[in-house]
Every structure is written in C-alpha cells, then in structure tokens.
C-alpha cells in the first residue's frame, strides 16, 4: 500500500471499465467479498449502515427540526446561528454530513433553493439519501442558471415580489431550507406540524406547504 494520489485516476477508471463486470450488482458484490477477505470490511457493519439509512434516517428528522423552530423562537435563532449545535441540542446524534449545517429561512419575499452543481452534497443525517433528481445533470445544471424555470417544473410559480437565493454547496457546509409556517397552523402540535413538512420543501423545490396533508 502507498499514499493515494488521484492525479491520473482516469487511467484506473478505464482499466476498471475494461476488466470488471459491467453489471453494478455483480461488481459491488465482488467488492464486498474482496474487502472482507482482505480484512478491511465487516459485512455486519455494512448491514447496520444500510438499515440506518433505509429505516431510520430520512426527511422526517429534518421536518421535526423545522417544526421545533416554528414553535420555539429561541431555538429557531440558535438553529439559524449554528445548525450543527442546535440539532445536537434536540438529541439528534447522527452527524453524517452535518458537521457544518447551515439553515436558511424562507420569508414572504425570499425563497431559498439548494443545489450542489459539482457533486451531490446533502445533509444526509437529517434528510437521508438524496433524491435521484438532486444527483442528476438536469437539476445540477439548471438550478443556478434558471431557478424559476426549475421551480415551475416542481409546481412552484414564484410571484415577482419573491427573490430566489440559490445556495450552491461548494464547501463542506450543508444547507437546509426552513419553509414558511402555513397560516392556520398556530394551534397545531409538533407531530402535526412535522407531518406537513416535505422533503422537497427543505431543499427548496417546494414552497407553500399543504395543511390538508395532515389529514385534517
């Protein structure tokens, strides 16, 4: 083993392309067996990570964070000041991709939209695995160039008085959009508020939350 230098990695990619089976399921299986044989991997740990991100971690956690901020102005101020510290305060211990969490707030005249044009950076510990469209070319190419057209494809037609702030995740900061609390929800409890906060609203591809989603 020697220090890894990625310069010239395209050579390794082309070797892999030529010599390793093209079917992803087969080659991932081969990779797992190989790493286990090499003593670099324990399959039971792989199982545990899969279960965590399949069954426990997902947008419901982000929704809960937003609901708490809606209900508690002091928590909201701390969340906007330092998202990483504030979510720990709620007992959210998962830290994957939220070491530098930045929460940005939608207002009557501002709409925030998050993208990662260079890869697919995403606050996984509180939103789970990225949507497929978030990782794909069309969204990454267009969100910074024509955000309003992209938003229309998501069913969001922004009025003229609302300005868009696009956040391109070019560093290790991870962005979470805090959508606006819908009118008429003043008396709602935390669980009911959490139930209407969607994944897309926390990325910024949805704006007005539907109060009927909570089932009345």
């Amino acid at each position, binding site marked *: 083993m020697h220090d890894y230098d990625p310069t010239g990695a395209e050579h390794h990619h082309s070797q892999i392309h030529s010599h390793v089976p093209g079917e992803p399921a087969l080659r991932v299986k081969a990779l797992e067996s190989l790493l286990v044989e*090499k003593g670099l991997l324990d399959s039971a740990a792989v199982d545990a990570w899969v279960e965590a991100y399949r069954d426990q971690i997902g947008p419901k956690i982000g929704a809960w964070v937003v609901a708490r901020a809606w209900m508690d102005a002091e928590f909201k101020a701390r969340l906007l000041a330092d998202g990483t510290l504030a979510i720990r305060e709620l007992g959210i211990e998962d830290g994957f991709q939220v070491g530098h969490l930045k929460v940005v707030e939608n207002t009557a005249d501002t709409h925030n939209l998050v993208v990662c044009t260079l890869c697919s950076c995403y606050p996984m510990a509180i939103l789970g695995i990225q949507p497929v469209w978030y990782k794909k070319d069309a969204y990454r190419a267009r969100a910074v160039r024509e955000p309003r057209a992209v938003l229309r494809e998501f069913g969001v037609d922004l009025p003229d008085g609302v300005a868009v702030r696009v956040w391109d995740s070019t560093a290790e900061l991870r962005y979470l959009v805090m959508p606006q609390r819908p009118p008429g929800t003043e008396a709602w409890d935390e669980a009911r508020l959490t139930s209407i906060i969607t994944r897309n609203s926390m990325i910024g591809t949805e704006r007005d939350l539907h109060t009927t989603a909570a089932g009345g």
Partner: protein
Amino acid sequence: MDGIHDMGGRHGYGPVKVTTAEPPFPEEWQGRMFGIVRAIKRPPSWNIDKFRYTREQIPPIEYVTRTYFDQWYMSYAAMLLGSGVVTLQELATGRSAAAGPDLGQPMTAPEVAKARTVAARFDRPYDRAPAFSVGARVRARADAPVTHTRLPGYARGRPGTVIAHHGAHVLPDASAIGREVASPLYAVAFRIGDLFAEQKDSPDMVNLDLWEAHLEPASG
C-alpha cells in the same frame, strides 16, 4: 479541472424528473455500496477531496450514464487500485490473491451506532486575518487548477459580494493532491445576471462558499 462534473449552467440536459419521495436504495446493491463506503477501513492517505477528484475523472460518458452509487463504486475501486490495496484481477473476481494491508480491525456492527455520531469538521486554526470582510466586493479568479477545485466554471471571473465569513476550512484544491492547507472560507453572493447574461434583469442571487484562494479584490 474542467470536467463533466462541473455542470452548473450547462445546457441540454432537459427537464428535471421530479419526485416527491422515493426509497433510499431502489436496488439492494446501492445500499450495499453505501454501507461499504461507510464501514470500510480507510487507508490513512484518503480524504473527501481525493474521493471527489477521483469521481470527477470518471470518463464523461460514464459520468452522465452511470447512477450515483455506481459512480461511488467506480471511485472507490479506483482509489483502492491507486493505493495498491487491490488489483484489477481481484476486483474482477472478488477473490483476494494476497493479504490486505494491516490497518487494524474494520468497524463492527455494534460500532456503527457510535460512528454515526461523528460529524466530520473541516474548520481549522488560522493565525492570519482574513483578507475580506463581510460586504467586500470580490471577483472569483478566472483561472483554475488543472486538478481538483471547488470553484465552479460558471463563477470564474465574475464579481460578487462577501456575505459571510465561515472561518478557515481545509482547502479542497490542495487537499485533493495530498496537502492540507487552511484558507478562510466565505459565502459569496453573485447576482444571477452577473453569472448568466440572459438573467440581467432578475433579482435572484446565487450564493457559493468559496475560499480566499479562489478570490481577488474587486471594485464597484
């Protein structure tokens, strides 16, 4: 590097395939690949920037046609090969022909709960004053290294305004080639019309997190 990965502002990719919810791992192998990456015992010379730089060098046609976790496969396979940990033959067969490096015990299932709490930090001590203050007018550098950078092509040479200073963070451009350098990190707001001429009348802004090494002073 000016690769296929630098997608911001590019034309021709068509409409977004909108979804509101989906399973995290539609196919089982995608979950396995995610879990392998989280659980693997890493050679000490690896870092997130070397991973990104490796992923950026996937041949363009494969970059746009392979799914996300298949790109993780390509990148980790290339990093293992490039570190001398595995051979092509071993990747192809899934059978080990020689002992692996002694890196200590890999993560066990009971250790995953603790590993999940790790929130990796990239801020670093820095003993000089940052060159720009909030409100400063800056211009993103027009040039970029032929190796990895987090300054996207669409912002190069464009004027913007510093809206926040995040302290000094690890500079990915250096880290990707094996040098850890701390550089002040700023949020910089660009008028969308300064990035894309057809948007000249738009009130919209595009905010990027850029390091001091990516910026120079601008007037006006």
